[in-house]
């Protein structure tokens, strides 16, 4: 483990790129709240930046920009309407908590909220939404997937920040064997991850999605190590 006072050495190695996955994730998380570490990283980025001149430029494949545009279009049209819906949803949470409502009625309410934002262009393809929750009164994360683009957005609704821990999202389906990680999800801001390319649409639709509480930066082993704190299933979102 790194000596606590060697922030500069840690920042230098982070920027150089030689830390392993766990150390990198830990530094990325620490810099969010440690100003000194963040400043050291920014300094090192600037110090070493000229080294990337050594790497020869290579033109990317010609069709790549249109794929990026398609991805941005899919995400912004879905994302904006979701964002508006989540704001409305979060405002309503208190009244939701006191009302004993079922998971399906939360999902239905979400779709009504999404349906209300009709000014957003209709996204192409099939969209799935899952409300991840501990019980019917406490939706914690909202996972939405555009099946065609395999782009996933995870929005925190009421997940509490746990010091020194990270929330990690898993996809669980019998065809996959063990639960497969979809990455660490932020408890304060939306996480957008096009990490679903490996999964077939019918698997995405039929899977259970679960969030575990893991050591900061995510499970060190690649398998879930903490308890499942929230889970849910996908439903098709046709209302937006």
């Amino acid at each position: 483990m790194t000596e606590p006072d060697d922030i500069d050495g840690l920042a230098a190695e982070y920027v150089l790129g030689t830390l392993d996955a766990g150390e990198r994730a830990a530094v990325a998380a620490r810099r969010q709240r440690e100003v000194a570490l963040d400043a050291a990283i920014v300094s090192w980025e600037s110090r070493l930046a000229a080294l990337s001149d050594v790497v020869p430029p290579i033109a990317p494949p010609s069709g790549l920009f249109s794929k990026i545009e398609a991805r941005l279009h899919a995400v912004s049209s879905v994302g904006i309407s979701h964002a508006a819906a989540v704001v409305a949803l979060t405002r309503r949470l208190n009244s939701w908590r006191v009302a004993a409502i079922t998971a399906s009625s939360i999902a239905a309410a979400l779709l009504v909220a999404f349906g209300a934002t009709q000014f957003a262009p209709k996204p192409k393809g099939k969209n799935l939404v899952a409300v991840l929750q501990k019980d019917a009164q406490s939706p914690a994360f909202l996972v939405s997937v555009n099946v065609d683009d395999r782009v996933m957005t995870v929005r925190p609704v009421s997940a509490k920040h746990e010091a020194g821990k990270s929330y990690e999202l898993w996809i669980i389906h019998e065809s996959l064997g063990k639960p497969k990680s979809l990455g660490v999800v932020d408890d304060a801001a939306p996480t957008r991850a096009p990490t679903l390319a490996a999964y077939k649409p019918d698997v995405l639709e039929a899977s259970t999605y679960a969030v575990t509480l893991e050591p900061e930066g995510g499970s060190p082993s690649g398998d879930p190590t903490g308890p499942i704190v929230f889970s849910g299933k996908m439903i098709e979102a046709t209302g937006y």
Partner: protein
Amino acid sequence: MTTVGELSNLLLRVAERDAAAFKVVYGATSSKLYGIILRILRRRDVADEVLQEVYVKIWDRASDFNPAIASPITWMATIARNRAIDEVRRKRPESFEDHPEIVDVPADDPSALSILMRGEDGRRLADCLSRLDDGKRQMVVLAYCDGLSRDELAAQYGQPVNTIKTWLRRSLAQLKGCLSS
């Protein structure tokens, strides 16, 4: 060729959701970023995917860009390197030996570095790199450009991982000292 000032202005427009500016930014920078990403990942299919994610991130985070802190290309290259290294640390897709032809960084030749590295900052960094021992300089360049981890460097140099860590930290401290003198 897009100047630093032009690129900064374009990014400020991207922050205001200007799709035309974004397209110009892509045209001006994608070869540089793709080169960086492909060098680290060594697989075109993975690099194609990562490049898309990087530009989505550039679009999303353009409002974070601050020309007072970093040049536009440094800001974008940092996003690309971070994403590529995160990807390669999850699982190195191919062994180092599969593509020896692309591991041709002129790390052994300080004069080549000083030719390639542009601008005042580049000249100073090349000069400071030239003061490191040959092996240490090569290690720093391989780590930065090719994305080698401590473990991979340890295998490459036939040294224990802790020795590599010590060498890296000392070399980086020496570089910092040289650059600030």
